[in-house]
């Protein structure tokens, strides 16, 4: 029997109020894929990412991770997913270490404290383990959120505009991290406004316009040529 794809979404449809944010989106990712999702504001990029993470239920269509449909009845289907969203998902009243230990417990990570410290160390935050999230700078907070998202070594990593608000140094650091995270066993979806930010690690690109794929293809070689295509699609 063939192994089910790491991620398989079929016919995703979802409205927000009277606005139809997604209108029949399909997506299949195999391990090793890195998909760059672009699109104008309001195209449904964030909705798509939240639906893939299982945080939004599609009104029609399904999301399956390793062949298991995301739904309230099967919490374990969510286990391979890691999400880096706009917000840190960290409790302001808990220290970074406590936040990560909590996450570790929720994901059944063995020796959660040990792994939490290691995850913080990997992000250069060892000396900040006792600090609260609000005591951190934007860049550090982002790293803490990354440490939380990676703690359970997700096979499917979803990133929502990860470069937004980072300075050049932090942006380079994140790019380097994403390059090391690009392993044959892992797939990533990166929602972004600027294709250039993660062009080099991407294996595929998708352009979302008004809740539908205007384009989904292997990543072309020429970023500048793609840019012109993108502008044409976004305008249409």
């Amino acid at each position: 029997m063939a192994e089910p794809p790491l991620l398989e979404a079929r016919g995703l449809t979802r409205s927000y109020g009277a606005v139809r944010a997604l209108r029949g989106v399909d997506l299949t990712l195999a391990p090793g894929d890195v998909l760059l999702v672009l699109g104008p504001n309001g195209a449904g990029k964030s909705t798509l990412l939240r639906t893939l993470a299982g945080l939004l239920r599609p009104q029609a269509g399904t999301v399956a991770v390793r062949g298991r449909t995301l739904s309230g009845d099967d919490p374990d289907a969510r286990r391979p997913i890691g999400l880096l969203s706009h917000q840190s998902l960290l409790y302001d009243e808990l220290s970074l270490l406590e936040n990560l230990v909590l996450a570790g417990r929720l994901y059944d990570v063995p020796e959660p404290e040990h792994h939490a410290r290691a995850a913080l160390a990997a992000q250069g935050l060892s000396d900040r383990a006792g600090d609260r999230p609000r005591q951190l700078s934007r860049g550090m907070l982002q790293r803490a959120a990354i440490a939380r998202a990676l703690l359970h070594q997700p096979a499917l990593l979803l990133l929502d505009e990860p470069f937004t608000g980072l300075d050049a140094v932090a942006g380079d650091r994140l790019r380097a991290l994403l390059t090391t995270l690009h392993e044959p066993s892992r797939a990533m979806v990166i929602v972004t406004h600027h294709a250039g930010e993660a062009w080099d690690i991407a294996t595929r690109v998708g352009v979302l316009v008004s809740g539908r794929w205007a384009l989904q293809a292997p990543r072309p070689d020429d970023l500048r040529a793609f840019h012109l295509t993108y502008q044409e699609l976004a305008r249409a």
Partner: protein
Amino acid sequence: MTADPALSVIRRGIILTVLALIGVAVVMVMALQFTPVEANQGLAQKIFYVHVPTAAVALWIAVPATGIASILYLWLHDPRLDRFAAASAEVAVVFCLVVLTTGPIWGKPIWGTWWTWDGRLTLTLFLFFLLLGYHALRGSVRDPLERGRFSAVLGIMGMALVPFIHLSVYLWRGLHPQPVVLKPSAPSLPWEMLRTLLAGFGVFILLYVGFVTLRYGLQLAQDRKEEADAA
């Protein structure tokens, strides 16, 4: 262009409502002109032909309908069920209000007091507040899907609460007349009165259907308009 489905629902609702209102007028004439005056209570008893049917429709039709539609909505996620649950709950508010007004009007001459913490009145009052809370909740959630889920949860919880409120307010028992129609032995009402009462049940059920249809149609029209605006 095909006819707007919302408009045809609204039209049907108006027809039913008008018919029901004519029926209400007929029942009132029946009650005042063609039904004997009750010996003990006198004319005040006439209010009973409005009070009892509205109370029964609110408690036994409108509220359970909202609860059942809520359960089905959480299961099927069909927006029609949400619209129907909301319409039924809104009509229930109106009917409860009628019950809560006619009750004291009758109670003043008969019990000698406008308000009493009688079990049934208290139950209706709590139901009324529960329904107002339901509408307040609906009004404060913008996303239609979220509004549907939240109000369905409240609708189900509310339906489960009714028997508990019933049990607790009946601790006080109270002054309320006992059921005269649906009781194990034969109805203790003379035929002329029973006839008027049954006619009352009929027209108030029709009024409920008319109001719900109308309200449903209006909501449908609004939803369609919002959808058209967004597209």
